[in-house]
């Protein structure tokens, strides 16, 4: 209790110095947390992947479609439970700045494969019944102020023309990792409309972007993937089947260099504040050399001196760290707002918060290590002679 009292009094001895050190810590911890959250957001799709879902795409490139008639053959593969499909639509809502993902899907099978999209039953039925209907995630609806029944016009890019949908449902994610910033509509509406508009040129009307395959056993993922790809080997549209996680990771891999750089910066920020705080603690220790010598003369051991200095450093680090963690939330919210739908999931995870606290305490411990060790070893006589 006395030690804690002494720590607090020492920490508040130079209020300006302590405050500035804490501010530095707050900034560093906040930056560390925000950068980590950005990296986490990049991996959000990966984290939301299910172990019982595979993605089958054209082996040449994702931009090449697959025939619709592959669905039945994939469904017949041993180990496959269900099959659905999706086309990336890429439409524009009012302005290019309003980017969000739109997929043309087979609603019954797709919604069955994605139970994490929680739709009220009546909305689901309304969506299933209306070929021109669409459902969107809660965050997307809130962003544009959409309500069930609203008309949503999209300007096609990959599929030219104006496309108008009727919002039939708004889904909520089953957990925080679920993407609530996307739109789903009927693949049949896309296909029929393409056929009407393009006529003979609508050859792509019976093609899908990817197949989403539900498997019965997660452990069979590799085997089932091989079976599916073997089906279409040497055909005009060979397939590449992989787990949903691997599929999502392939997108992340495109930005890997950026992610590595962001992570590196997050650690560098922590190192910088560590050096600053180490300097602060060295100055503090030098100023109090005579006091530590006095304590040792009175009979306090080297361990007491170490606890005194390290305790003060950890106390400052703890307060700064907690404040930094608290500040990360509003900053992350602001960043997410500014980023719009670029990061559908943008949350400061519990792991990030734990790492932030760990980083702060590590800074406090490392900053005090050298000065505490030095002070514990000072010769009493030399220390008593020291003039701060």
């Amino acid at each position: 209790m006395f030690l804690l009292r002494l720590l607090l009094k020492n920490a508040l001895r130079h209020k300006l110095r302590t405050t500035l050190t804490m501010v530095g810590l707050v900034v560093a911890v906040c930056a560390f947390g925000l950068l980590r959250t950005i990296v986490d957001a990049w991996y959000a799709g990966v984290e939301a992947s299910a172990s019982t879902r595979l993605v089958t795409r054209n082996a040449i490139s994702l931009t090449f479609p697959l025939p619709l008639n592959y669905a039945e053959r994939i469904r017949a593969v041993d180990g496959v439970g269900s099959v659905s499909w999706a086309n990336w639509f890429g439409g524009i809502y009012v302005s290019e700045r309003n980017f969000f993902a739109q997929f043309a899907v087979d609603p019954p099978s797709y919604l069955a494969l994605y139970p994490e999209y929680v739709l009220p039953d009546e909305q689901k039925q309304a969506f299933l019944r209306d070929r021109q209907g669409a459902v969107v995630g809660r965050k997307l609806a809130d962003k544009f102020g959409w309500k069930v029944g609203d008309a949503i016009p999209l300007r096609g890019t990959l599929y030219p023309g104006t496309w108008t949908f009727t919002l039939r449902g708004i889904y909520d994610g089953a957990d925080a990792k679920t993407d609530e910033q996307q739109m789903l509509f009927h693949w049949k509406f896309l296909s029929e409309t393409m056929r009407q508009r393009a006529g003979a040129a609508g050859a792509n009307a019976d093609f899908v972007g990817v197949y989403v395959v539900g498997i019965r056993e997660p452990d069979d993922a590799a085997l089932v993937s091989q079976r599916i790809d073997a089906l279409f080997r040497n055909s005009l549209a060979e397939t590449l089947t992989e787990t949903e996680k691997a599929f999502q990771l392939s997108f992340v891999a495109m930005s890997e260099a950026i992610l590595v750089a962001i992570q590196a910066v997050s650690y560098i920020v922590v190192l910088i504040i560590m050096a600053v705080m180490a300097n602060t603690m060295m100055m503090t220790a030098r100023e109090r050399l005579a006091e530590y010598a006095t304590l040792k003369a009175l009979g306090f051991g080297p361990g007491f001196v170490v606890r005194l200095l390290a305790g003060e450093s950890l106390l400052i680090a703890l307060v700064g760290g907690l404040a930094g963690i608290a500040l990360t939330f509003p900053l992350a919210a602001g960043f997410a707002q500014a980023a719009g739908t670029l990061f559908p999931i943008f949350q400061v995870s519990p792991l990030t918060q734990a790492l932030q606290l760990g980083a702060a305490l590590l800074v406090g411990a490392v900053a005090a290590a050298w000065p505490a060790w030095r002070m514990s070893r000072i010769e009493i006589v030399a220390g008593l002679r020291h003039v701060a």
Partner: protein
Amino acid sequence: MSTPPVAADEPPLIRIRDLSKAYVRGTQVIPVLQGVDLDVRRAEFVALMGPSGSGKSTLLNLIAGIDKPSGGTLEIGGVDIVGLGEGDLADWRAANVGFIFQFYNLLPVLTAAENVELPLLLTGLSRRQRREHVDAALAMVRLDDRADHYPNELSGGQQQRVAIARALVTDPQLIVADEPTGDLDRVTGAEVLSLLDELHRQLGKTIVMVTHDPKAAARAERLVHLEKGVLVADDANGAAEAATAHAR
């Protein structure tokens, strides 16, 4: 806190034989103390005097157990403190030595009472017991009304009295004082010396004091004079004359 009278055949509290101390600077060996023999009886008030560099502070530091000799023996209360390890020596100091420094060496973030309490934290006393000891020590130095004041709210003399209270609070057998009046004006210094005198007479404390001040030395019963690391005079009876001669 008073101690029983000293028996005639009681062995000395401090027994020093052939004590030496040297510092090594590169290849150079600098002797600071050489072949010092000294006995100090319990309840004696001894002043160590000498010109600057005579080794008096070094001798005091060795007696206090905050420095290690290069050679010789040093027994205090029957304990060979030269043979103690760092941890044991720290424990021995906490139990047996009270320190009074020239510049008080109070912790500025602690109140007078908290500074006095510091040595008691190394004992097994309860908080209530510690408080009682602190109150008694502050009363002894007539600063009980300043218990909650911080050092920067006290005069130099008051700070030194707090330091004296801190030195007494664990009832150590030995008080070491290094220039206790060195940073005080004449009047305040005299007050502090009177207090030390009073503690010596009333409580029978053994005090070893380093001083340049002949008036301070005159308070002691015995004057030990060092020059160039060697004990040159040990005047048990003529302390006042020796101090005056030194002052000339």
